[in-house]
């Protein structure tokens, strides 16, 4: 599914550094990372050759890390050069920033020295409005703007904190410090998913020993070596092994509607005899639990659906459903 290469693939959205294309599946999009880089709400622009590919690979790796930890994301699988295959989501106009150390606008606003470790990670919300300069907003603002109810915002905050925890730990293993991170969220039906990208464009990452900045601050502050910084992040992440991502998926197979189910009938008759006259119908099927190595829960599910279509269920006589079983501590 690499529809973006064909002229027919429709552009659904073009942002400052990414383009989103439709695919042959209505619930999937292809997110292509471009080499464009911008700062100061688009006032400073450049192109850094290879940045799109780097950000795509870093995002894939970190989305996978979140998926593995049970944090639901829009990521499905690798989508070819500089692209990710993702679930189609409705992006909420909210930037959720989690900070572990003071830096950037927080230092400017509160006068905290850059690099100071905060007593605990803090969460900030920004309203995504280029024309307003993405203002800082609070819970009341978010509610009255109709972006999210308090309940949804609470879930967003919890997921953001969990994602920060997972990623900070992952960076630490790679000898890197996650200073802060900006997350965006999307809705797929009523599922809340971490969306957009997770790349050096959207977080601050420093070398754990030297404190060297390896992220977009190199561009913002004209430090040079932007691409090299991004490359260092990717290399360090790839050099430290991630645990294998195993997703548990349950395929339930039942006799097709209208198909006689003699077993179900026998069980129903037995239940009547046992004193459960209210049992109107019984269908006996089977549940098949699969542990699948995959880049994401959605990819594991796609695989299971394919397996169900091809062998686990016989389409002549059976129908099936596929359910992802949540990993322990998951936030789905």
């Amino acid at each position, binding site marked *: 599914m690499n529809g973006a290469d064909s002229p027919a693939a429709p552009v659904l959205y073009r942002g400052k550094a990414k383009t989103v294309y439709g695919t042959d599946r209505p619930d999937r999009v292809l997110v292509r990372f471009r080499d464009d880089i911008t700062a100061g709400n688009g006032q400073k622009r450049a192109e850094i050759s290879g940045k799109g590919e780097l950000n795509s690979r870093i995002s894939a790796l970190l989305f996978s890390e979140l998926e593995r930890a049970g944090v639901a994301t829009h990521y499905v699988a690798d989508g070819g050069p500089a692209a990710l295959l993702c679930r189609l989501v409705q992006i909420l106009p909210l930037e959720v920033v989690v900070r572990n150390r003071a830096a950037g606008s927080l230092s400017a606003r509160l006068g905290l020295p850059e690099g100071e470790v905060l007593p605990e990670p803090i969460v900030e919300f920004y309203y995504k409005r280029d024309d307003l300069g993405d203002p800082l907003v609070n819970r009341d603002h978010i509610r009255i703007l109709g972006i999210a109810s308090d309940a949804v915002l609470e879930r967003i905050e919890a997921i953001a904190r969990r994602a920060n925890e997972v990623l900070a730990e992952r960076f630490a293993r790679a000898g890197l410090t996650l200073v802060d991170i900006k997350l965006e969220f999307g809705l797929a039906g009523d599922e809340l998913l971490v969306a957009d990208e997770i790349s050096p464009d959207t977080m601050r990452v420093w070398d754990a020993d030297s404190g060297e900045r390896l992220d977009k601050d190199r561009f913002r502050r004209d430090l040079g070596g932007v691409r090299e910084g991004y490359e260092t992040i990717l290399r360090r992440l790839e050099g430290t092994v991630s645990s294998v991502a195993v997703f548990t998926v349950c395929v339930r197979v039942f*006799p097709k509607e209208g*198909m*006689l189910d*003699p*077993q179900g*009938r*026998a069980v129903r008759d037995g239940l009547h005899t046992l004193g459960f006259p209210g049992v109107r119908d019984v269908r006996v099927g089977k549940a098949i639990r699969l542990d699948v190595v995959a880049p994401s829960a959605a990819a594991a599910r796609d695989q299971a659906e394919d397996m169900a279509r091809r*062998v*686990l269920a*016989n389409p*002549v*006589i059976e129908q099936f459903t596929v359910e992802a079983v949540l990993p322990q501590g998951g936030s789905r």
Partner: protein
Amino acid sequence: MKCAVIVFPGSNCDRDAHRAVAEVLGERAVYVRHDATNLQDADLVLLPGGFSYGDYLRAGALARFAPVMEAVRRFAAAGGPVLGICNGFQILCEAGMLPGALVRNRDRRFVCRPVHLVVENTETPFTSRYAPGQVIRLPIAHGEGCYVAPGEVLDELERTRRVVFRYCHPSGSVTAEANPNGSARNIAGIVNEAGNVLGLMPHPERAVEAYMTSTDGLAMFAAVRDWLAGPGARAVSRDQAAAGATTGGARRV
């Protein structure tokens, strides 16, 4: 004639089939294991009854992945005669070599008894020794022999005369009472589009000698021998089969 009897883990009618061909008919028969990749130059492939792979998942569902099935597919695609009996029929359906599926018997019981069948098509490599409309008697022994398929598939089978056997009353009339398992339209056996792949639930290999109370099954194996000596079979190139070519040479039914 050389008959390859495919042996899957859990096959249990392989010896009966081998014996029917080798000892009763007096032709050659060899056992070919599920993990074989060639059919030892056989002229007839027989998928016997039993419970291949323990009927896990669904009857026949896992046998289709056995390495030997790739060779069977090539053999069938090149027009070679393939006979699937009972579990063999289930395997052929699961493998997509025959349409439809076999599900649990309507009455939930394992049914083991002789049944009567009316032969509806005698122009197949397996049925030329029967007379059109002839009633034969063969045993069945299965728990999941209820043939089902979408209505349009059943209509297509009827229209192209691919229903070869139907369960019937000894008089030959096809009635609901004569249907031992609830099969759609009393279907007991069908062939593929090219006519060279037959699947049936009854057991012809268990009706080949007088002491078995019926010898009606023997004619099925003898018919294949006739067919192999005839013009239809000569069109089937074994070399093509070995090379995996898919040019069907069997006569259409």
